[in-house]
């Protein structure tokens, strides 16, 4: 009986989970830094509106 497919499947699962574990927080960090940059760009002073207009 060949066990090859079982062994390959087990190691593949192992690699897949580790890959997720590596990538997920990296993507989070990237997104957070991007958001911080966007916020900094946005926080330029705004013109205060005086009289109500619509």
């Amino acid at each position, binding site marked *: 009986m060949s066990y090859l497919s079982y062994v390959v499947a087990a*190691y593949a699962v192992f690699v897949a*989970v580790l890959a*997720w*574990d590596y990538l997920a927080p990296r993507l989070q960090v990237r997104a*957070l830094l991007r958001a911080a*940059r966007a*916020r900094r760009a946005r926080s330029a002073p705004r013109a205060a509106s005086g009289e109500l207009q619509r």
Partner: protein
Amino acid sequence: MNPVLRWFHQLGSPPYFDSFAARWSPWLFAAAIALLGIGAWQGLFVVPADYQQGDSFRIFFVHVPAAMLSLMVFAAMAAYAAIALVWRIKLCEILAMACAPVGAGFTVITLVTGSIWGKPMWGTWWDWDPRLTTELILLFLYLGVIALYGAIDDRRNAARAAGFLAIVGVVLLPIIKYSVVWWNSLHQGQTISLLGESKIDPSMVAPFWIMYAGMLCWFLASLLQRARADNLRRESGKDWVAKLSGGEA
């Protein structure tokens, strides 16, 4: 001040921790990948086939270290959480919560590789056996901690509530560990031991411990990386984050 204490104190400052984690986690990942590569190569190609289980026992080298880590990470999470609850140290809250997804990952690996191994050995993917069941419950606990942490919006309160749950959940660890001893079980009994004589073939011992060390490094590396992400999220309004984002753009 004691230099170790001072270093620990410094580590508690968010910007310092960020740079610390950013510096060290790549090295730890590199070490982990190297160790895991060597261990897997030895386990897959160097060690001779088992006389009983044939080649299927090569799953052993991922299954058992991952199972051991799934328990250890939970213990670490509870320890960090206890420190965080008692002394209100923010870094420990972050570290405790960073443990949860990593530990859940190892638990998934344990469950899936175990199932895959079970098919040829026991003739079934799954059985409601004490060890398997308790390990599944461990996964649910990990998910519960993650969900609870996500469900409360004040990050500190969320960490304290989820950490509390982790501490309550520690009761499960000895039950998983000794389930094979207390109940009669389909699953293998204790075979590996750190100090005494292990009951496995000597040729398997070295790759096993290499894999174990590799996974340990992986855990530390991933812990730092996840803690860094959480740290950044908590501090996202701060100046240093804005500076950092500008610098890395």
